[in-house]
């Protein structure tokens, strides 16, 4: 009982600290952090762990609001190198079923959409998890269409780091050769923000599938101050996630989506976090992010031993970094701008996309896949989209679109 009370106190203290930091009351926020430092722990239960990372993020936030050099130096130290990033992304794939499910569903949806095609183009906007997804796709295609001769597959992948792309290209090449596909790999070294879809080496007229897993929200990163000024002219949406109908703030996103639409994809599958942390109010962001990441930490707690060093590392290097980004970064730096599917839908529709149903075969496979994981995850199909839940909390959404 005492534990529960401590936990509740911890939560209240966190939220209170966020409120104080937001209002500029750094003195009291510091006291709150002092108290938090004794209550939170990176080795404790899931609430304590998530609280540790949130406390760290609030501390960074406070530092960032008052100093300029210190946060930059700290960030210098903490930036992950490419192999580290790859490692944590791999851990994300291993620890959670989310990516597995996303890939399965994406692939199934693509396969079903490409029925009868002999040449397939794939645009991968989020290749960080390596080539798993496309290797599986190729295998799935082979299974599904065993008699199609000489299926030609072209994969275009966008990533900032050349090494990642090279690795991916090699794996895919090997697999394609094994399966006797004609395979072509087009790596594009670029960030999503600076990408102009029209410049992509994709042949018009050929069927195209686009996949974007947990990356699309980074395009919402924008200079908030300017956006806010422009927003005043438009009715502010209560959600503070900038309404897609207001032109200025999500211009980057709208242009990008429109560019994608112009590529005329036969199918586009988007996987995103189902949480709205794209607000401008710090307390709101902390509140919502707490719920989201609390659930993610709970998943780990339920499935992995506390003493496993990979778990702590993963929590620190991926989840902690995401939390820090949400809480302590502002403007263009804040890339983790998750939004709920209900705000994505108007954006995509505005760009011209139409929703298509998700492959039911994929859903079936995904449900079966979940049996290999700790009980507690479920998949629900709502409104033609798929949501992945952890114990009644929606965490991720998968939706399929077409041109």
């Amino acid at each position, binding site marked *: 009982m005492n534990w529960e009370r*401590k936990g509740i106190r911890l939560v209240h203290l966190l939220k209170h600290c966020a409120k104080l930091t937001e209002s500029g009351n750094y003195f009291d926020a510091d006291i709150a952090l002092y108290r938090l430092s004794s209550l939170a722990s990176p*080795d404790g239960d*899931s609430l304590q762990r998530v609280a540790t990372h949130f406390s760290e993020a609030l501390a960074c936030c406070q530092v960032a609001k008052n100093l300029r050099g210190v946060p930059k130096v700290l960030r210098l130290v903490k930036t992950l190198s490419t*192999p580290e990033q790859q*490692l944590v992304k791999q851990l994300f794939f291993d620890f959670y079923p989310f990516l597995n499910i996303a890939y399965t569903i994406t692939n199934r949806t693509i396969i079903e959409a490409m029925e009868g095609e002999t040449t397939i183009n794939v645009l991968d906007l989020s290749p960080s998890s390596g*080539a798993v997804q496309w290797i599986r796709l190729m295998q799935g295609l082979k299974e599904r269409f065993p008699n199609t001769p000489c299926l030609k597959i072209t994969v275009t992948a966008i990533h900032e780091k050349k090494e990642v792309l090279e690795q991916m290209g090699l794996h895919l090449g090997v697999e394609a050769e094994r399966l006797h596909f004609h395979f072509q790999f087009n790596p594009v070294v670029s960030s999503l923000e600076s990408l102009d879809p029209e410049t992509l080496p994709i042949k018009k007229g050929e069927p195209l599938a686009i996949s974007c897993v947990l990356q699309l929200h980074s395009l919402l990163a924008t200079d908030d101050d300017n956006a806010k000024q422009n927003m005043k002219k438009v009715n502010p949406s209560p959600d503070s996630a900038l309404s897609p109908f207001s032109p200025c703030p999500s211009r980057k996103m709208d242009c990008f989506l429109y560019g994608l639409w112009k590529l005329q994809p036969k199918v586009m599958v988007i996987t995103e976090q189902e949480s709205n942390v794209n607000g401008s109010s710090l307390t709101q962001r902390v509140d919502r992010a707490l719920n989201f990441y609390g*659930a993610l930490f709970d998943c780990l707690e339920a499935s992995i031993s506390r*003493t496993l060093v990979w778990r702590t590392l993963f929590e620190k290097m991926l989840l902690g970094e995401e939390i820090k980004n949400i809480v302590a970064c502002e403007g263009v730096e804040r890339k983790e701008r998750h939004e709920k599917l209900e705000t994505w839908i108007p954006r995509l529709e505005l760009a011209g996309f139409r929703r298509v149903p998700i492959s039911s075969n994929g859903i079936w496979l995904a449900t079966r896949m979940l049996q290999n994981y700790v009980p507690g995850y479920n998949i629900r199909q709502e409104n033609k989209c798929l949501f992945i839940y952890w114990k009644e909390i929606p965490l991720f959404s998968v939706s399929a679109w077409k041109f």
Partner: protein
Amino acid sequence: MAAASSSTPFLGIRQENQSQVTQQHQSSTVASSTATTPPTVPQKKRRNQPGTPYPDAEVIALSPKTLMATNRFICEVCNKGFQREQNLQLHRRGHNLPWKLKQKTTKEPKRKVYLCPEPTCVHHDPSRALGDLTGIKKHYSRKHGEKKWKCDKCSKKYAVQSDWKAHSKTCGTREYRCDCGTLFSRRDSFITHRAFCDALAHESARHPSNLNPLGTHLYGTNHMSLGLGAQLQNQAATNSILSLGSAPKFEHLISPNLHHSSSFGVQSPPHSSFFMTDPNQAFQDLQSQQQGPLFSSKQFHGLMQLPDLQGTTNNSSSASSVSASANNTNLFNLSFFPNTNSSGSIINDHQFNNISGGNNQGTATHYSTNSPVSNQVGSGLSSLFGNSSVQQDNMSPHMSATALLQKAAQMGSTTTTNGSSSLLRGTEELGIRSNMENEHSNHLRGLMNSLANGNTSIFGNVKGNENNLGQFHNVVEEPKKLSQNLGVCFGGSDKLTLDFLGVGGMVRNMNSGGFSQREQQHSMGTMSPLDPKLESAQANQHFGTSTL
């Protein structure tokens, strides 16, 4: 203020003259003509005034001497003093003097209200007159009088004897003890101390060494003893895993790696080269010891069983073993501790070279792509992570972060100013509430008892102390919210109206004990303008005391 001066004829107040002896048969109050508490005086706007219950009451202003006089009725014969007129009359019988007991006048008694003679006092104003003679006497002593009574235990001084008596009953009977052993008699100093007490900090979950995985169990309660058994066996195992984390070993490992080719699970020998030297020993030990549930799955063996990998992959080209190893070594195929970025890319290059040279088989199944294989991996992973054992080791589900977050949102005390100030300054208050709810700690019970007795000294304490003022303010400001929160905490007991200080309840319930309602309002009224300053003053003060 027109009403302040007693010479205002409008109010018809006449001040008692200094000589009181003249009339024995009259009470010391001067009956005045039609005096009315002026409804037309513009002080009506003042807040904290629950109305004037007797608007047509007679307003009486007494001199200080009259107020403080104890024996006002003097026998003319022997000069003995009496407090009451009736007593004097009875005494006069003894002198064979004519005596008459004054009857209480039937008819409707004219209500009398009294003014404080001190002109700077709020109650000097007729609209703030007090309704009780005893009350005004005590008020005058307390506020404007000399404190003649001293508590022997704590050196607190009182002007009114009854206050002093009441205080000495409870003085020292309630003590606060911090977990670090320090004793406090005063609640505010206790709370201040606890906010920054390091002993309190050590008590919570933070445990010393990362290398001791059992440290997690220090935080635990009885639940953990279940996991301890399993964990103990794994301690050596986990220590060896954790020894992975020590950089020196790794550096010495990675350098040989730089010259190795691919680190995929291909047939060429040095692939799993990360663990070729010493830690392999550790891993072998690990495997021999790993009876623990963590490592029960065969699939998982691929993760740690790298020496095996070396042995088998030399011979076999079977997809399964390769894929098994491949599945899991992909965790290690990156230079995990990036001594340099270049090392990472060098490894990559070497990988590429090797792969392109052949070994399609190996890399092809690198990622366990087929669904049966992925099922294997999945199941391997789930047993790797050991469902049942994990739930033994970790806490039971009702402690999940989501559950706690939801509960905390329901309690919602973050949004009230009350809650926020208590979070920082008196986080212990929440703790004490919990004590009340669950453990019924003695001192709080004592507090409630003394409250029940209508103890005014606590109220006096609160007034006298600046720290408490702040808390009192918070309580007063939102007594309703506080009681709502308490409703949650106390589970809806009828003690809802009492808060931990008891002040909220007292404010509402305390009509006896010499505290008239108006006096309470008075004190509340004085506090509010101080609030904004109090907040910052409190913070500074708080921090000041934190330099322990």
